[in-house]
């Protein structure tokens, strides 16, 4: 077992010789070849699997597993396979490659998700960047009541409850792992920075911006925060 099988890239982000993690040949006895073992496990998974879970299954160190996953991903890309390995929502999963969607979608009928409305997308965006956040604060930012839309997002599994506000006890919302999956994000850190889109607002108190306690608006009597009690 000195040569990796053909077809695996001789790329190894961890600097190991040939696409496989360096394992002392003595220790390697009885161990499964890492990359194909990972392929086998990923082939039966129906959710993204994180590196520790995979490491436990293939009985290799997590660091080696991570290196092997990166190698596989690069290899599938270089080979122009019809599938790809993606790191989404903190785990790894096989996906079909976008270029072959026409073929996949001719075969998979009815699998299309209904698209989100502009209202739902805006609400989702606010939750994504300001989480955890109450419905009232999302309402204040969007200027409209968001109860119905938030419910839709929860039903779709894109948003979930995340405890309640310390002060008012309002339910707080956050995005879910499924949101990252659908967006193709490894984690929320990959969301683009909002700051460049927000010129000159730093002079203002953030709380006021979120509509929590804008004195003027209070006077005007209409912020919808109290909807969620």
């Amino acid at each position, binding site marked *: 077992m000195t040569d990796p099988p053909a077809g695996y890239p001789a790329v190894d982000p961890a600097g190991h010789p040939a696409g496989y993690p360096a394992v002392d040949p003595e220790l390697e006895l009885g161990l499964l070849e890492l990359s194909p073992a990972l392929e086998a496990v*990923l*082939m039966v*998974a*129906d959710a993204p699997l994180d590196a520790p879970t995979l490491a436990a299954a293939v009985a290799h160190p997590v660091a080696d597993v991570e290196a092997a996953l990166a190698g596989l991903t690069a290899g599938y890309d270089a080979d122009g396979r019809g599938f*790809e390995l993606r790191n989404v929502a903190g785990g790894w*999963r*096989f*996906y*079909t*490659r*976008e270029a072959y969607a026409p073929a996949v979608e001719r075969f998979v009928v009815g*699998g299309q998700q209904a*698209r*989100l*409305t*502009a*209202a*739902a*997308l*805006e609400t989702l*965006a*606010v939750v*994504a*960047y300001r989480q955890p956040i109450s419905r009232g604060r999302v309402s204040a*930012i*969007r*200027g*409209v*009541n968001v*109860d*119905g839309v938030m*419910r*839709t997002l929860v039903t779709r599994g894109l948003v979930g409850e995340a405890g309640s506000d310390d002060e008012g006890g309002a339910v707080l919302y956050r995005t879910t792992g499924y949101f990252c999956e*659908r*967006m*193709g994000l490894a984690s929320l850190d990959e969301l*683009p920075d*909002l700051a460049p*889109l*927000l*010129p*000159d*607002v730093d002079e*203002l108190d953030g709380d006021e*911006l979120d509509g929590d306690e*804008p*004195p*003027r*608006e209070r*006077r*005007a*009597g*209409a*912020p*919808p*925060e*109290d*909807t*969620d*009690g």
Partner: protein
Amino acid sequence: MNDVAVEPATSIDVHLDVFEGPFDLLLGLIARHRLDITEVALSTVTDEFLAHTRSLGRTGELEQTSSFLVVAATLLDMKAARLLPQATVEDEDDLALLEARDLLFARLLQYRAFKQVAASFGVRLAAQQHRHPRAVSLEPRFAALLPEVLISLGRDSFAELAARALTAKPTPVLSLAHAHTTTVSVREQAALLVQRLRRTTTTTFRALTADAPDTLTTVARFLALLELFHEGAVTFDQADPLGELHVRWTGGDDDVEVSEEFDGTAAPHLRPSGLAAVPEDGSDD
């Protein structure tokens, strides 16, 4: 589940029927005039904004009007301020106006930022949808090895879960708790103000709103006053720069008709928005 298409990335062309609240409308109007978000832009679109707020009343969606009123009040405030002698800022009310103006700008910009990322979310979700995850049943030999399923819910929680899933619109219990359906008519408030102004001729805004039972009434009186100003029935004056805002009756004894601009005809009352009937943008469900 209707399938409304994601708006294009630059979606600020206005369909007044489908705007998403006051900020959306304002942005749309400003974009239609091809303006940047400035004070001039706001004053340019103030009338259109008010016209739309008025039409909301006509279409019986007045519940939604209150969130528009917050913005309308600031816009009118700004407009009124420009009609007054310019001066340096000293008074608390003027500070409040500046603050309200800055806040409106900031919230508009913030809303625009979220609108932009929302559009990019839409594009991204649509693109990602063409990458299909593998999710197939286990090969039988492995399925046989699956551990016993663990259902961590008790039967009551399970029933609650079912109820939640089967209920598209749970009744908003909390908001009903403080649902006292007060309504405030700008027209009625105007009539009240006319009465008082005829009696006293000169007074201050502070005095005119001192007995307002709630903030909504204050807003209604404020709007009524601006309507009266529009009709030439009152003038505003400040004795010293940025002093108290004095209101003087100039309308004589003839009847002054305050338009139904803010009240509309279909539903002639403003409702506080903290009630159950807050505007829903539930175009989604």
